[in-house]
């Protein structure tokens, strides 16, 4: 198996999808899988193992934890491995069962395990298994090994590489058995064993059978059997002689009995013959009588014809008489019927008048049709007219009412109008007043405003005044200050000058040489400098300016004030007395006036409206009047026409009786009347017909009667003739009358019977005579023997004979039985021998092949040992390199315990000590090298074995850390050598040295979102 490409999604530490393309190793067969601890190095191998078998790379790793914690919630864990077996490329995809978040709703749903196996043919992949169980089975088949073997041979898992090295021989056997397909050898041993067991059973069965045979024969051993046979023979002979004697005796007795019986029979016969002859005599008379009967019968037969002929005639006559009676009866009936029918007919004829009446009624009824129809129409019309009349009347009344209402309304409106008009007249006046009030109010308001403004101005002016005052004060102060400062400065200057004064020196100011009171130094301290002076002067000037401004402001304000005052006066004048009125009051008044004015105006408007309304109403009234008139006219019209209709109706009603007025009544009457008439006519016709028919029948009956009478006469004649003939014949044959003739008749069978009887009798008589004659002859001179005694004797001898015979036969039978048994015994003995021989062979062979032999080596083990030798040779070759010829691996049974099976025990020869020791005594590093050598050796041999599995790749998970630097060098050299064999070797190791020594690497880097994989060369 050589991996080509591995793709892992959400697997172990790989959160996303990571691709490892082994092709990227660019032909480097030896490569390193490196990365920090926990990055996912072993997980890479887990992924491969999982993809193939659904299991982890070592038993310590739980496959249910393979789902990556870094995985997206909706991403399933999935591993895909493309690999080559020989020339065929396969792809296995496996997705373990996982809890997927539901697409709808909370919670998860479990997706089951999925697996697929594809095989590449012709450039694309086709699926060859698609259920996890099938995939596992197929993978195991094409890999040639199960997951367990995979972990021990192709993948040496971390910490477990020693498994195969240190395995017990039985385990080793099972692994090698799988790899080299040697199970045949184990099975053949088992098959032989099974056969041996079967054979043993067969042997046992034979033995049992033999025992059975002996038992059946009633003996214990074969010897007894033979003795019994001998005895039996003798007994049989003796019995045979006895039998012969008895037979003779019996025969004699029998013969005597026979003879006696014969004699007795003869005598008996003679007696019987006599008896029968006598019997026959007794019946002779009876026989004669029978003869006579027969003769008479013959006679009767002769005239039978005549008798029958007469009978026929007699019957005919009777029949004819009957006919006659019948015919007469018929005639009678026919006559009666005729009379009845005639009577009916006459009745019917008599009803002529009624019929006429009926016809007249029909005609009458027909006449009424027209008037009735008219009546109906008129009725309808009348209804209509009445309704119209009603309607017209109603309309009229309604209109009148309306009119009344309108009148009333008109009056009302008139009154309202008058009112409103009055109100409206005041409107104009009010509006004037409103205007005036408005104007006054305006003025007042203005005055008020002016007053306020004036007050404001006053205030401002006051302020300005004050400001001017203040300003003046400030100014004064400032001027004082300036003066002070000047004085001070002067003083200072003076002081300064004074300070420089020398007595006798002229003062710079006045020139005096006397300085009585020089300026004070103290004042000098407060002397301002030029700057300060200037500043205060400036301040004064400033203030002046300000003061001027203030004055200006004040003046302005004053002027304004004055103006305002003037204005106010003007306004006051304008208002006169109103000037002092309250604005609020005035405003209220104005409002009042305004409202009054408004209502007046509204009243005016309403008046107009009312006028309009009134006009309208009057118009309406007029219209209404007209309508009323029309309505009245209509009503009277309607009435008139109604009256007309009524008159007509009355007329019609005279014609038609009330019960016939409604539609259908007349029709019914007409129909019934017509029907009655028709019925009557029918009756009449019927009665006529019936009368005719009956008359005819009566005539026919009369004719029949006459005919029949003639027939009767004829028949009587014939009968008479026949009677005469018969009487004649009877007399000639001596028959008294017909009854006697009848008595003498015999049927054919009866006659024959009698005949036979007679014949038999005759014969019997003849025979009896013969018999008698013979019997007498035979029994002459014989005497009756004593049968009983002879019988008893014969019986006795027969019984004895029987007994002896039985005994003899029994003895023979027994002899036979014993001889059979002997024969069987011989046969079985032979079979036993054969079977035993075979069994022994089978047992021996089975045992030998199963390992029960001197060397305690089974067949399979033997074969495997040979193979294992090859493996060890290859392994030792490598180990030689890695241990520099110190160690050599070998099969040896020296260290096995006594009862264990031999073969497949592994020891290591140590050149340093010259002795061998079990492999478990190697140190950690040494055992790693040995295990590695063994794995390599195993894969070498399996590769070459025909039909063997392809072990094109080997993976080693750690173990190099246990090697010292030299050993590491040797191991690396050994692995590097492997590359020439075309085998891929992948190493997982954290040993830093390896990273420097092995250029082709698969580097695994952990990141916060899962690990990533990268192939690096160099």
């Amino acid at each position: 198996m050589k991996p080509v490409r591995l793709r892992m999604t959400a697997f172990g530490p790989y959160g996303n999808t990571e691709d490892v393309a082994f092709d990227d190793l660019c032909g480097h067969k030896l490569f390193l899988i490196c990365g920090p601890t926990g990055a996912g190095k072993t997980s890479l191998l887990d992924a491969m193992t999982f993809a193939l078998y659904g299991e982890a790379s070592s038993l310590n790793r739980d496959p249910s934890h393979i789902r990556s914690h870094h995985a997206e919630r909706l991403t399933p864990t999935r591993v895909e491995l493309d690999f080559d077996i020989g020339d065929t490329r396969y792809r296995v995809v496996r997705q373990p069962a996982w809890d997927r978040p539901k697409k709808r709703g909370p919670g998860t749903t479990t997706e089951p395990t999925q697996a697929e196996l594809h095989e590449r043919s012709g450039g694309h992949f086709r699926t060859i298994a698609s259920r996890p169980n099938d995939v596992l089975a197929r993978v195991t088949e094409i890999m040639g090994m199960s997951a367990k073997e995979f972990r021990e041979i192709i993948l040496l898992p971390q910490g477990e590489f020693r498994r195969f090295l240190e395995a017990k021989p039985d385990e080793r056997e099972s692994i090698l058995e799988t790899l080299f397909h040697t199970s045949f050898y184990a099975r053949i041993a088992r098959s032989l064993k099974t056969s041996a067991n079967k054979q043993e059973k067969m042997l046992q069965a034979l033995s049992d059978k033999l025992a059975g045979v002996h038992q059946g024969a009633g003996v214990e051993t074969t010897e007894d059997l033979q003795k019994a046979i001998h005895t039996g023979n003798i007994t049989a002979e003796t019995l045979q002689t006895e039998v012969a004697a008895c037979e003779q005796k019996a025969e004699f007795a029998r013969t005597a009995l026979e003879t006696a019986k014969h004699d007795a029979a003869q005598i008996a016969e003679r007696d019987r013959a006599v008896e029968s002859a006598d019997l026959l005599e007794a019946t002779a008379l009876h026989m004669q009588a029978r003869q006579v009967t027969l003769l008479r019968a013959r006679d009767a037969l002769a005239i039978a014809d005549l008798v029958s002929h007469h009978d026929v005639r007699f019957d005919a006559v009777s029949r004819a008489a009957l006919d006659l009676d019948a015919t007469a009866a018929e005639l009678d009936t026919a006559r009666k019927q005729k009379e009845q029918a005639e009577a009916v007919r006459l009745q019917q004829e008599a009803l002529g008048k009624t019929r006429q009446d009926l016809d007249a009624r029909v005609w009458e009824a027909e006449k009424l049709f027209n008037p009735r129809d008219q009546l109906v129409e008129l009725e309808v019309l009348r209804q209509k007219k009445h309704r119209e009349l009603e309607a017209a009347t109603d309309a009229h009344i309604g209109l009148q009412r309306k009119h009344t209402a309108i009148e009333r309304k008109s009056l009302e409106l008139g009154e309202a109008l008058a009112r409103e008009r009055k109100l409206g007249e005041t409107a104009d006046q009010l509006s004037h007043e409103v205007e005036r009030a408005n104007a006054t109010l305006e003025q007042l308001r203005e005055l008020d405003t002016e007053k306020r403004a004036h007050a404001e101005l006053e205030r401002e002016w006051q302020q300005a005044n004050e400001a001017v005052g203040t300003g003046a004060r400030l100014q004064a102060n400032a001027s004082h200050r300036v003066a002070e400062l000047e004085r001070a400065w002067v003083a200072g200057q003076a002081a300064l000058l004074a300070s420089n004064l020398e007595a006798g020196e002229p003062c710079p100011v006045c020139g005096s040489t006397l300085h009585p009171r020089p300026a004070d130094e103290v004042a000098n301290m407060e002397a301002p400098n030029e700057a300060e002076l200037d500043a205060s002067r400036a301040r004064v000037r400033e203030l002046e300016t300000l003061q001027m401004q203030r004055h200006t402001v004040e003046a302005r304000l004053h002027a304004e004030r004055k103006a305002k005052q003037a204005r106010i006066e003007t306004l006051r004048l304008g208002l006169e007395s109103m000037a002092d009125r309250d604005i609020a009051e005035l405003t209220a008044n104005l409002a009042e006036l305004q409202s009054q004015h408004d209502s007046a105006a509204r009243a005016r408007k309403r008046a107009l409206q009312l006028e309009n309304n009134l006009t309208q109403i009057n118009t309406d009234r007029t219209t209404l009047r007209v309508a009323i008139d029309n309505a009245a006219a209509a009503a009277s019209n309607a009435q008139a026409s109604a009256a007309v209709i009524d008159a007509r109706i009355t007329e019609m009603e005279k014609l038609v009786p009330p019960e016939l007025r409604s539609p259908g009544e007349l029709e019914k009457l007409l129909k019934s009347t017509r029907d009655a008439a028709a019925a009557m006519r029918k009756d009449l016709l019927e009665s006529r017909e019936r009368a005719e028919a009956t008359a005819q029948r009566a005539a026919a009956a009369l004719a029949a009667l006459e005919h029949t009478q003639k027939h009767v006469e004829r028949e009587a004649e014939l009968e008479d003739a026949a009677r005469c003939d018969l009487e004649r014949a009877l007399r000639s044959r001596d028959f008294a009358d017909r009854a006697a003739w009848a008595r003498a008749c015999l049927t054919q069978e009866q006659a024959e019977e009698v005949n036979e009887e007679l014949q038999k009798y005759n014969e019997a008589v003849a025979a009896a005579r013969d018999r008698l004659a013979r019997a007498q002859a035979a029994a002459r001179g014989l005497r009756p023997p004593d049968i009983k005694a002879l019988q008893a004797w014969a019986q006795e001898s027969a019984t004895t004979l029987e007994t002896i015979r039985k005994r003899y036969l029994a003895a023979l039978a027994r002899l036979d039985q014993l001889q059979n048994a002997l024969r069987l015994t011989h046969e079985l003995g032979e079979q036993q021998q054969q079977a035993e021989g075979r069994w022994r062979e089978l047992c021996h062979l089975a045992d030998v092949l199963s390992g029960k032999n001197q060397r305690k080596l089974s067949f399979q083990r033997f074969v495997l040992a040979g193979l294992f030798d090859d493996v060890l040779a290859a392994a030792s070759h490598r180990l030689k390199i890695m241990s520099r010829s110190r160690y050599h691996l070998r099969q040896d049974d020296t260290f096995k315990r006594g009862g264990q099976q031999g073969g497949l025990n592994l020891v290591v020869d140590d050149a340093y000590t010259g002795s061998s020791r079990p492999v478990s005594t190697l140190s950690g590093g040494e055992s790693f090298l040995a295990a590695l050598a063994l794995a390599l050796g195993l894969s070498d041999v399996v590769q070459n074995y025909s039909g063997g599995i392809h072990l094109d790749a080997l993976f080693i998970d750690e173990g190099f850390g246990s090697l010292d630097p030299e050993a590491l060098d040797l191991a690396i050299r050994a692995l590097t050598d492997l590359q020439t064999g075309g085998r891929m070797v992948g190493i997982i190791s954290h040993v830093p040295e390896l990273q420097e020594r092995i250029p082709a690497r698969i580097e695994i880097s952990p990141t916060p979102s899962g690990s990533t994989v990268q192939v690096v060369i160099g």
Partner: protein
Amino acid sequence: MSGNIRHALVHEIGACVRIFHTSDWHVGRSLYGTSLLSDQAELLAELVRIAADEQPDVVLIAGDIYDRAVPSHAAVDLLDETLHNLVIKNGLPCILIAGNHDSGERLAFSSRLLARESLHVIGRPSSSPKPIVLSDTHGPVYFFGLPYASPGEVREAMGNDSINDHQTAMTSAMNSVRAASPHGARSVVLAHTFVTGAKASESERPLVGGLASVERRTFDGVSYAALGHLHRPQTIHDERIRYAGSLMRYAFSEADQDKSVSMVEIDLAGEVTVREIPLTAKRDLRCLSGSLQQVLGAAALDPRYLDYLEITLTDTKPVFDAMRRLREHYPNVLHIRRAETELDTTSTVRRDLSRMDDRELLNDFYQHVVGLPLSSAQRSLYDEHAVDLRSKWSSGDDP
């Protein structure tokens, strides 16, 4: 650094430049599990003494300084001491390059600082190697160090994708060396590689990365190529290209090699003269052979009984506890070998099982466990069952 030429300390040299060429010290190596550090310490002390006597202008160590990429602390101490003695105590400038056993990056730690004290360590390949310049009375001599690197590393360093093996890597490096050395001037290159035509020894670790050998004409254009990697001191074709050889014998197959350091003189014309100065180890690697009795007998008379020995026992019968007994007399026996013949005896004759059929196997098996041949009755009995089983098996019954 601007320009191609780095002015390190320029040393004054005598008439012609004298070079002390050594390589492959493999400090910290062990052999058959025994550490050789004490021997290496002695030999390195010897080397320092020789160097102190010879007073060369420069000491060249052409790679494989350490035995491993991460050496033990004792090894580091030893190297530290040795270099200190060479450079500081004796004032000898040293140029050393990394070999395939060294980790170039680790070795080059503080190389810039060290360069100030005339210890030039070149651990990594560079696209433009800068020479160390020493001058003698005739003029400057340019020394270029080309440390060992995998072709991949060289490819990256040079930025040249066509480098995929050691030949192309070395060619490319030498091109830049030639470009960097002024025309007509003397130049010396240190390299750690395998040159075609050279003799390899057992103790060398093979180079990885494509074609591992380099043509000797790659080194045309320099006055002298001081090579390391092969443990046998040898020149390739002429004195210009030379391997100094390893510090001591590192494998028993090298027992016949004499180890040495090389004193090389290059005059103005570029003529090279080489003188080998032997190195003698207190404990040599030697091979003995004979029967156990013989060897044990000879032990008493062997003056060099402390040597590291590989003993080949020629006994045909088994010998027990050979190692212990030998070590009683030769304390430093490292390895015992047995003569080849014994190793092939196994309990059964090797067969090509794939070609034998089961009946033959049965024969052999029976003979082996019972000691008698199979009778024909037994054979037919077996055949019966075998036929039956085979037909069942081939019809796909699960075994």
